[in-house]
């Protein structure tokens, strides 16, 4: 037996995303953000997107390009404080923003990936984030029902992928990637290196290949992937 080859040209993979799609993007700040796949999405022109990402990156990077090009209808996120454009567009009503507690965003995605419909938590019960959500009484304490999240396409960045789509992530670039890779109808992984089958030790794979549909090679890394020198 031989595991199938999922290597795909970037343009061909991104062309599977229709306008109006819900798209998850891995990454926490720079580490793990699939900058190259985002740039290809900009180039191809899909719009009216619902983006699910921990943060909105910073000016001139990642999600900021999607915002600047007017491609985002709705953003489900945890923190946009480092992107003034995102804050301004939200305040002006140009995008809808749904804030979520960070670990609850992770669990909603994980639940979506695990075939569950919702999670129940006491996190945020005293905040406006709980407004309008179903409430339950669990053991005498109030809890909130948070719906699972799935998406049409997840774009994730991997340090290494094999041709079957087994993925490994580097350092804090792992963050949401293995969770999002489970919660999408289609997963496109960009990888800094694509290695032959067998080159990734099976017990060191962070996201197993069956979750991944396309593996896209990154020949070079743009400046966006680099160390950010802040004033």
């Amino acid at each position, binding site marked *: 037996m031989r595991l199938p080859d999922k290597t795909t040209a970037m343009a061909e993979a991104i062309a599977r995303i229709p306008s109006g799609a819900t798209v998850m993007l891995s990454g926490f700040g720079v580490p793990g953000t699939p900058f190259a796949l985002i740039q290809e999405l900009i180039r191809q022109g899909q719009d009216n997107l619902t983006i699910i990402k921990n943060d909105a990156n910073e000016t001139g990077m990642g999600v900021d390009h999607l915002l600047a090009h007017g491609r985002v209808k709705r953003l489900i996120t945890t923190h946009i404080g480092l992107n003034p454009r995102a804050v301004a567009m939200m305040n002006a009503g140009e995008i809808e923003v749904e804030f979520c507690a960070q670990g609850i965003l*992770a669990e909603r995605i994980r639940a979506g990936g695990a075939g569950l419909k919702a999670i129940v938590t006491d996190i945020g019960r005293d905040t406006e984030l709980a407004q309008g959500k179903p409430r339950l009484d669990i053991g005498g304490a109030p809890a909130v029902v948070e719906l699972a999240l799935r998406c049409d396409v997840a774009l994730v960045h991997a340090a290494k992928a094999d041709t079957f789509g087994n993925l490994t992530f580097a350092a804090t670039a792992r963050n949401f990637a293995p969770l999002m890779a489970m919660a999408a109808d289609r997963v496109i992984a960009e990888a800094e290196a694509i290695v032959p089958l067998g080159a990734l030790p099976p017990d060191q794979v962070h996201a197993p290949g069956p979750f991944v549909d396309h593996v896209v090679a990154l020949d070079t890394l743009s400046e966006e992937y680099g160390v950010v020198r802040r004033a």
Partner: protein
Amino acid sequence: MSGARNRMIARAAQEIAPGMVVNLGMGLPTRVIDHIAPDFPVCLHTENGLTGIGPTLPYEQADRNLIDAGGAYVSTIPGSAFCDSATSFALVRSGRLDLTMLGAFEVSATGDLANWKIPGRFTPGAGGGIELAQKARRVVVLTTHTDRDGNPKLVGRCTLPLTAKACVARIFTEMAVIDVTPQGFALREIATGLDPATVTAATGAPLALPTGQIPEF
């Protein structure tokens, strides 16, 4: 002022006991790391997926994939581990976090914390703050005593949207160390040379003063 702020950060660092698992929030709390001795036994956690944070690195030595939740380039130490975001917050929500230090827009006399939204002005979002505030075993706040306009950040009731209710145990400011008690704010320590009346005037709710000498920091 900046001298007072440094003393406050150094004082807050003493809050960390040997063996703790600790999360330092964005802003002032992150700077506490500079006051932890290299051989002090503590596990620092950052919610983007690292336990065992090592020293912050200059840009020339930075690993582009290795940051803390505030975006600073940090490092690993022997025994560090990486994890995904779900695992990172499982650690927080299940009670493994002994202490978190957070920033604040407002703290109320009952320990309510507001630090994620100023409606119409600045809404960064809560990030991991709600879970840290609600689930760390001990929550302390590091903040300036007043905002940029001179308004008290320590108030009777929060007017801003809450991060979590009744979560803050202690507040460190450049003026004072203040505990949240069942009776409200209580002054524990005061910045060297400061008059208690000055602290009281800058605090937006009643402040109980200790009897006798007030320890200075």
